[in-house]
């Protein structure tokens, strides 16, 4: 693995081209390609291929259309279209926004690390760190005033995520251990530790009934207030997520910390030359990334989950979906908002609760959603494929349109 700079690495043989193709090199490309072209085409193409898979396995021309129609109706986005069953659409839309909320935050967790030149696959583990901590704080401190209890629990979740992300950052800063491997390992470590805390006899998070592998419910004083709907309503956490988007944007573009993070992400050597501590920024960027993901976990717990059951560990992919969100959203606040909404809709639309099993088996649909996410990541990652397809009529070759630039004033 050599995408990350290794402090004691060997001198690289001279290459005429500046090192592009790095994580942050992509950012520049996006900025220049400007626009929505790549994300939108990538999304369409991913849905097209997903449709072909449905077509093949269901052996029916109409199957993909029916499946996508059912999925779309399950998202509640029809609420915006007048007519139809507004009440049901509203309930569906509440679910979509409920899922969009943590996705915004885990998307930010990936995006922030990206801007510092790192690929944070550990959003999932940092999410767990926040969630597990929130259970503890949410089920204790009985009698605390609600505002204080919620604040305390959210802060604890943020810190837990920051610690879990910060470990990977610290390892990268001090030893150069590649964050891709270390964050994946940390994901598994916290997953099994979480199961242990929940399932072991006298487990730390084990609920009152030790025969059930689940935690107690968080106390009412720690629950986030509902803002829309009655049965599993949308909660105030969505405002926190929207606020986090603003914080992300300002932090990156309007603070010296953001300047340092971006400089390190684009060119660590030049950043060091400018007097910026590269190691400190690796650590901080992953800790802050972890804080976003930890907040997602805490909000999910205080907003609507209220308790943790053992099966949750294998089913939850919020942190991984955050990667797709960040990539599709081009690491920008507005992009992340819309990408999170897209994936939130996709997940809700394919969930067993929303999808009519007579039209399309929800268990298949959940995996279809995973596949579509993967394809979107692949196509956004390979934007040249998209641009190639777009320009195919102009017969532009596969090759990257980059040629050495002769120097001279």
């Amino acid at each position, binding site marked *: 693995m050599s995408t990350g700079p290794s402090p004691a690495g060997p001198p690289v043989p*001279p290459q005429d081209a500046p090192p592009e193709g790095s994580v942050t090199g992509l950012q520049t490309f996006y900025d220049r390609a400007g626009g929505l072209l790549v994300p939108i085409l990538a999304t369409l193409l991913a849905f097209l291929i997903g449709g072909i898979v449905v077509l093949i396995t269901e052996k029916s021309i109409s199957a993909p259309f029916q499946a996508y129609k059912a999925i779309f109706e399950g998202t509640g986005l029809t609420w915006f279209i007048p007519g139809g069953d507004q009440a049901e659409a509203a309930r569906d839309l509440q679910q979509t926004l409920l899922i969009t909320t943590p996705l915004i935050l885990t998307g930010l967790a990936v995006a922030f690390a990206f801007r510092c030149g790192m690929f944070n696959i550990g959003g999932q583990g940092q999410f767990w760190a926040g969630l597990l901590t929130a259970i503890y704080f949410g089920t204790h401190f009985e009698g605390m005033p609600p505002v204080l209890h919620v604040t305390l629990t959210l802060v604890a979740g943020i810190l837990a995520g920051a610690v879990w992300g910060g470990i990977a950052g610290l390892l990268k800063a001090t030893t150069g251990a590649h964050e891709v491997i270390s964050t994946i390992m940390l994901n598994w470590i916290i997953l099994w530790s979480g199961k242990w805390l929940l399932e072991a006899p006298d487990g730390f998070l084990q609920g009152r009934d030790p025969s059930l592998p689940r935690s107690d419910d968080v106390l009412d004083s720690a629950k986030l207030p509902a803002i829309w709907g009655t049965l599993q309503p949308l909660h105030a956490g969505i405002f926190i997520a929207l606020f986090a988007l603003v914080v992300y944007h300002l932090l990156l*573009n309007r603070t*010296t910390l953001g300047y340092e993070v971006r400089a390190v992400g684009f060119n660590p050597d030049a950043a*060091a030359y400018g*007097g910026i501590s590269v190691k400190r920024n690796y650590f901080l960027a992953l800790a802050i990334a972890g804080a976003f993901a930890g907040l997602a976990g805490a909000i999910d717990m205080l907003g609507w989950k209220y308790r943790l059951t053992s099966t949750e560990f294998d089913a939850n992919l919020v942190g991984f979906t955050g990667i797709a969100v960040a990539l599709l959203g081009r690491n920008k606040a507005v992009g992340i908002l819309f990408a999170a909404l897209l994936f939130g809709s996709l997940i809700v639309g394919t969930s067993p609760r929303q999808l009519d099993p007579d039209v399309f088996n929800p268990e298949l649909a959940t995996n279809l959603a995973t596949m579509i996410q993967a394809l979107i990541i692949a196509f956004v990652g390979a934007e040249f494929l998209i641009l190639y397809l777009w320009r195919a009529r102009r017969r532009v070759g596969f090759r990257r*349109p980059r040629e050495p630039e*002769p*120097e*001279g*004033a």
Partner: protein
Amino acid sequence: MTEPPLLELKGITKRFPGVVANDHVDFDLVKGEVHALLGENGAGKSTLMNILYGLYHPDEGEIRLRDDAVRIDSPHAAIDAGIGMVHQHFMLIPVMTVAENIVLAVEPRRGPFLDHATANERVLEISQRFGLAVRPDARIESISVGMQQRVEILKALYRGAEILILDEPTAVLTPQEALELFQIIRSLQAEGKSIIFITHKLGEVLEIADRITVLRRGKTIETVPREGATEEGLARLMVGREVLLRVEKKPAEPGEPLLTVEDLRVHDERGLEAVRGISLEVRAGEIVGIAGVDGNGQTELVEAITGLRHIDAGRVVAAETDITGESARGSLEAGVGHIPEDRHRRGLVLDFTLAENIALKDYCEEPDSKWGWLFPKRLVARATKLLKEFDVRGGGAQTLASSLSGGNQQKVVVAREVSRDPRILVAAQPTRGLDVGAIEFVHRRLVAERDEGRAILLVSFELDEVISLSDRILVMYEGRVVGEYPPSVSEEELGIAMLGGRREAVA
């Protein structure tokens, strides 16, 4: 012309986005001659040769070999046509041996296995035939640059090259190593090989070439025989106007010492000691030049002074502040400015705007920021002013640094460093890869900064740059200062010192 040419390039045109690198270029090569291709950086020499070697594809024009039109669309085709190339940046794999590098892609086999013994044998054989001594089982990363160049030449000869392209071959050599190279070229010529010699150095051309073709801005200007050619005449052809070969400057008026380095020891990436006990002093109002072949510890010395590399032993004092063991920030706050040797790797964040680049060292101080809050508008305002003052063309404060030409990028770096009003300025390779106009700008600016009373430490591999700018010259060899000379020194004398030939007491 008495003989029909071995090779002919006719009307070669190559366009890159925004530039025409080669504009209907004509060139021909007679068997057994050394034909120099002369031009400044960016004149299109390398592009033309990369076309001949099949690395680029021309938009127009044809290549004729022994009077037949040929298509060379890959290095493979070039090799088959008997063309070999020694690239400016060597195409050698550092972790492999000399023999492995030479036989790569035409390996001798024994059954399905690579036959190392035969490979070594054949490499020895061919190295003896052409008088190019190498050790087949030495690793590339452990041999000298001059030796690596021989390996490159052998690589071409091993593949049966009749035409040899040498791209700026002396750029990395000492004058003495260059003389050795010229002997090698003459012996190759005697064996009937034909050589294309790419360079921007006038002296070399007059020494080695039989004919000289001058390129300027992608166009063939003229092909002249060596007889009758002069440095001044060639320079005029190359640049298109009269060129001042010397920098105008007044005698230095050195003041108090500003930069003091005492018995400095520093190691490189591989953990080897690269700077082995260097002491030097730079006074206010003087330029101290460091001459030496690349890789003798200059990079590590500069990085140690500017806080970018760990110091093992010794002391660095900048304007009465001890900055030994300080970070880059400590060094720059003590008043050390730094024009780094590689503006793409270090000097600029290419994906940042010019305003952001100019703020690279001040972003955390007022007025750029306050309490961690950045003021982008102030960055832009300051940058706009500086860009105008330093006559940076090709973009404004909001332009990305990557979209500027090399010369303008370097002006941005110089603008940033000079505008911070440093007491000490460390300039490493400040004119690398620039054209004559930009070189003149940088040189004038350095002299002006000297006259302002700054202490300037100049590191350069270009001997004439060191000689024409410096008030005192130190020669570095294998991590030590091996001699101090006045600017009146001859290139030959410096060259001998650069090879460690003579040691003098350091003043």
